[in-house]
């Protein structure tokens, strides 16, 4: 076999391009890294087996002030628009005639000051009304992880579902699959985004931002592997419910005083 210089260069160049193409794709797919700091914790994967996080929401205490929604946006550098939110507050108004009005103006981030509900009431009598904060349930059997075609969303050993923003291709399957509507598409990076229970905070022993700022203690966070943790105490003291238990997703946000009909 005789290899001319021209042929050698053509073949060699071709081989080089074939090798570099996947690199180029990978580089162009990579999102911009979030604002980071030298982490005070080392390799979290060496620690995480010691924890199993849980969340509780007390619907009998929530006052619908919406500070949790604002705090989440600030802590997690989310877009200011209310439709791109990792948590939101819903208001349920059950009328004496049996009709249920549900609203969440601007995800509740500015509270419920408006009179929209009053207009929809049309003077009818209210039987009961309450607020239900919503966030990712960090399901033990998460449909969003099952459907991801590129393994960009995954469950950590301490029970939190995360999105790999560098691998996500923005196909939105997970947004469709989540029965709780917890996910949205980041408008800037075009990747799926959702609540992480402030994974960067809980790994450092802090509470999630929404729990930190809740003025009435309606959001409760803790570690199931710690017998003294607030979530363990909630499950000990109260009868609790989860959203859509029939779907078998095994959600880990436990609601105190959950009214039947709240989904």
């Amino acid at each position, binding site marked *: 076999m005789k290899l001319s210089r021209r042929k050698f260069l053509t073949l060699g160049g071709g081989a080089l391009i074939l090798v570099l193409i996947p690199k180029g794709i990978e580089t162009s797919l990579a999102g911009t890294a979030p604002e980071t700091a030298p982490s005070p914790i080392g390799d979290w994967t060496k620690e995480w087996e010691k924890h199993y996080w849980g969340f509780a929401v007390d619907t009998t205490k929530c006052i619908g002030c919406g500070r949790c929604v604002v705090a989440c946006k600030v802590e997690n550098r989310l877009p200011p628009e209310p439709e791109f939110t990792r948590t939101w507050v819903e208001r349920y108004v059950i009328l004496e005639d049996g009709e249920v009005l549900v609203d969440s103006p601007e995800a509740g981030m500015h509270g419920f000051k408006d009179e929209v509900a009053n207009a929809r009431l049309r003077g009818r009598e209210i039987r009961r009304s309450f607020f239900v904060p919503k966030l990712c349930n960090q399901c033990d059997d998460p449909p969003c992880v099952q459907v991801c075609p590129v393994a960009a969303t995954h469950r950590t050993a301490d029970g939190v579902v995360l999105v790999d923003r560098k691998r996500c291709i923005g196909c939105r399957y997970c947004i469709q699959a989540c029965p709780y509507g917890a996910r949205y598409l980041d408008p800037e990076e075009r990747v799926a985004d959702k609540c992480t229970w402030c994974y960067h*905070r809980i790994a450092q022993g802090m509470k999630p931002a929404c729990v930190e700022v809740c003025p009435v203690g309606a959001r409760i966070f803790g570690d199931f592997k710690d017998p003294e943790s607030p979530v363990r105490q909630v499950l000990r003291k109260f009868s609790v419910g989860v959203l859509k238990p029939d779907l078998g997703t095994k959600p880990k946000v436990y609601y105190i005083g959950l009214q039947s009909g709240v989904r």
Partner: protein
Amino acid sequence: MTPHLRLALILVVVPVLVVIGLPWALRGLPVAASETYPWSLVPRTFGENGYYRGSNVGEWTSIAPRFAGDVAVCNTCHQGQFSSWSGGAHKVISCQTCHGTRANHVLGKPDPRPASPELAPLVAMPPIELCSTCHDARVVGRPVGFPQVNPETHAGKTACTLCHSPHNPQPGGRR
């Protein structure tokens, strides 16, 4: 050099260059580029902890918190406000609920400015608006027994802070 030798040289040198030389040449590039092997899209850390890119966990845990973790540290400097707050009904509320992010402040650095006025802390609002966030009786849906007033009939346009200290809201509470 005989053609056989030349061919053998190419067959050995080229693969060696590609397998060892390319990764070596790419080692200085940003994380995203060097995280995969040059011949594949599969990240090096894929499968370390499960069916995903293992290094993603570290990316999430290395985000810098903006809200401080423990408000007990506030007492180091703001002792007056702290003791007033810890003796009143508002002691269940974190300092940061009204005063906003303070993680950097504790470290002696400036806290990031809110990305939009809507995300400003409560203390940026006029008192009536600030207190109404939680205590406006006209809002439908609040739990029975939660202290609420109609700001219009309660004190008109008078600033709430004239009678109530936000740190200790009972009338006459220590400021």
